[in-house]
C-alpha cells in the first residue's frame, strides 16, 4: 500500500490517478483473535492502532456493524480541546492534545489538525471570574490558557455582535490557543489505514449479536458473520453501550441522548477559530471547505434515534444569531443527530471488566471526538496490561459506588444536565 507522500501523488497524477489502492483491506473474519474491539468508530480504531503500535498486539479484529466513519466519528463538530478543570480529566485530555499534534505524521495521513484556538465568551463579571479560575487551574496543570479582554475577543472574531445594546454584551473571554479542529473523517480513515498496515483486521458490516461465555469468562462474540473467538473483548460502542451490556445482564451508569449538529453552505472565511457563546449553549467553527459548523445542547430525553426535534434546533440557532447576527444570512445545508452515551457524572469510563475477558470504553457524553487519540491510547494500555494507564485510572466503572465521581459541572446523576 505504501506511504502517502508528495512523490507518490505526483507519480499517480501523471498516470491519471488510476493506480491508487484501497486504504485498508476488507478481510473475512478469522475464527480467532487475541483481541476483538467491538465498534469501528474513532475510539475503536485508535485502540486497535495503539494495541499494535505500542503493545505489539497485532492479531486484532475491529468489528463494525455499519461502515468506517458512519457513526459518531462522522457526526461531531470536530472540536479538539483540553480546557478541563478536574484532576481526573486534565492530564488525560492534555495527553490527547500531544497526540493530536503529531497525529498526521504518526499515521501518515493528513488529519488536518488545525490549532486555531478555542475561545469561550463571558458576558458578565462573575462569568469572567469563573473563567479566570478555569484559566489558572489549566495553567497549573500545564495547559495553555489566556484571559481575553472584550476588545481582544472582538479583534479575534470581528463578526461577533460587540454592540452595547445586544441582549448579552461581551465582557471578555478565555482562550486555549493550541486547541482547535481536526477533520473528523480523516481521523477515522487515518487510524483505520494505519491499524490495517500493522496487521489489524477491520471487518465492516459485522454486527455483534451476543457474547460467547465459558463459565464466567467472555471468550468471544456471535456476529452476523459467524462466531469469532478472542482472549479479550473490548467494547467501544458509544451510543449503544447499554444495549450491548444488556446482553450480559449489566446495567451501566449511562443514558442515551441525541445531540444535534448543523452545517451551513460553504462561505468565505468568516470565523477564525472555535467560538462558544457564554449566555446559552452554542459552539461554532468554520470548516476548511467553508461550511459553518455548529451545535448546542442535547435534546434532553432518552433516545436512540439519530435525529432530534425542532425546539432544540430553534434554541441552538437563536443562541448563534444572538452572538453572530450575520449568520442569519447563511443557508443551512444539513442537520443531523448522533446518539451519546451520557454518563452519570459527565465523564467517561475506560476500565477492565466488569466481567473477565471484557474491557469497557463508554460514557463519552458529547466530548468523544477530542478524546479519540487519548481514549485509544489508554484503552489499548488497559486491554494489554489488564490495568488502567496512569491517565485513565480515575475513569473506573466503580467510581460511582465509591463516591469518586468526576463531575466537571457539579450536576449530579442527571445525564441530561451534563
Amino acid at each position, binding site marked *: 500500500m505504501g506511504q502517502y507522500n508528495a512523490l507518490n501523488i505526483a507519480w499517480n497524477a501523471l498516470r491519471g490517478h488510476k493506480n491508487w489502492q484501497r486504504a485498508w483491506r476488507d478481510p473475512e473474519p478469522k475464527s480467532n483473535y487475541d483481541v476483538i474491539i467491538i465498534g469501528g468508530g474513532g475510539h475503536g480504531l485508535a485502540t486497535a492502532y495503539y494495541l499494535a503500535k505500542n503493545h505489539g498486539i497485532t492479531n486484532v479484529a475491529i468489528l463494525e456493524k455499519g461502515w468506517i466513519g458512519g457513526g459518531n466519528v462522522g457526526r461531531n463538530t470536530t472540536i479538539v480541546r483540553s480546557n478541563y478543570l478536574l484532576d481526573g480529566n486534565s492530564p488525560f485530555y492534555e495527553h490527547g492534545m500531544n497526540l493530536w499534534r503529531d497525529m498526521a505524521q504518526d499515521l501518515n495521513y493528513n488529519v488536518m489538525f488545525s490549532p486555531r484556538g478555542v475561545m469561550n465568551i463571558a458576558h458578565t463579571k462573575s462569568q469572567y471570574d469563573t473563567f479566570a479560575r478555569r484559566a489558572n487551574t489549566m495553567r497549573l496543570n500545564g495547559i495553555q490558557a489566556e484571559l481575553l479582554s472584550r476588545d481582544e475577543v472582538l479583534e479575534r472574531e470581528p463578526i461577533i455582535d460587540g454592540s452595547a445594546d445586544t441582549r448579552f454584551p461581551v465582557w471578555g473571554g478565555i482562550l486555549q490557543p493550541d486547541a482547535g479542529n481536526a477533520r473528523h473523517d480523516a481521523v477515522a480513515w487515518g487510524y483505520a489505514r494505519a491499524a490495517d498496515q500493522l496487521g489489524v483486521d477491520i471487518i465492516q458490516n459485522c454486527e455483534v449479536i451476543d457474547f460467547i461465555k465459558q463459565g464466567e469468562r467472555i471468550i468471544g462474540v456471535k456476529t452476523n458473520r459467524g462466531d469469532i473467538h478472542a482472549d479479550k473483548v473490548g467494547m467501544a460502542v458509544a451510543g*449503544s453501550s*447499554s*444495549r450491548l451490556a*444488556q446482553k450480559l445482564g449489566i*446495567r*451501566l*451508569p*449511562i*443514558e*442515551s441522548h441525541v445531540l444535534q449538529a448543523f452545517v451551513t453552505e460553504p462561505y468565505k472565511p468568516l470565523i477564525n477559530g472555535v467560538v462558544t457563546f457564554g449566555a446559552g449553549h452554542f459552539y461554532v467553527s468554520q470548516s476548511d471547505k467553508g461550511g459553518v459548523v455548529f451545535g448546542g445542547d442535547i435534546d*434532553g*430525553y*432518552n*433516545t*436512540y*434515534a439519530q435525529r432530534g*426535534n*425542532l*425546539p432544540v434546533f430553534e434554541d441552538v440557532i437563536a443562541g448563534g444569531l444572538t452572538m453572530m447576527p450575520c449568520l442569519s444570512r447563511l443557508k443551512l445545508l444539513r442537520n443531523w443527530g448522533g446518539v451519546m452515551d451520557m454518563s*452519570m457524572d459527565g465523564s467517561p469510563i475506560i476500565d477492565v471488566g466488569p466481567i473477565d475477558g471484557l474491557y469497557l470504553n463508554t460514557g463519552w457524553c458529547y466530548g468523544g471526538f477530542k478524546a479519540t487519540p487519548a481514549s485509544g491510547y489508554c484503552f489499548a494500555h488497559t486491554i494489554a496490561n489488564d490495568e488502567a494507564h496512569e491517565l485513565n485510572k480515575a475513569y473506573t466503572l466503580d467510581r*460511582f*459506588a465509591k463516591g469518586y465521581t468526576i463531575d466537571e459541572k457539579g450536576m449530579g*446523576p*442527571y445525564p*441530561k444536565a451534563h
Partner: protein
Amino acid sequence: MMRINCPYCGEREHSEFTYGEDATRTAPDNDAPMEEWNKFVYERDNPAGEHIEYWHHAFGCRAWLKVQRNTFTHDISWVGLPHEHPEAES
C-alpha cells in the same frame, strides 16, 4: 416534533414540557445496603424501544405526567398521571 396528549390540557407540543426521567425506578428502603442505593442512583436500564418516563407540563398545567414513548421512533403510545401505569389501560 413530538406531541404529548396531556390528560388535563389536551395534545400539546413537547416544547411545553420538560423531561423528567425514567419512571420505572423506585427508591430502596432508607436502611437498604449501599449497593442497592448505588444501583438506584446511578444505574439505568436505558432501553432501546418502549420507555416509561416522567414529563413535566412546565409551560401548561404544571402537572407531572407519565408517558410511554419509543426511544427509536419517538412515538408516544400512552400518557397518564404519575400514579397510573400503561398496562392498566389496555
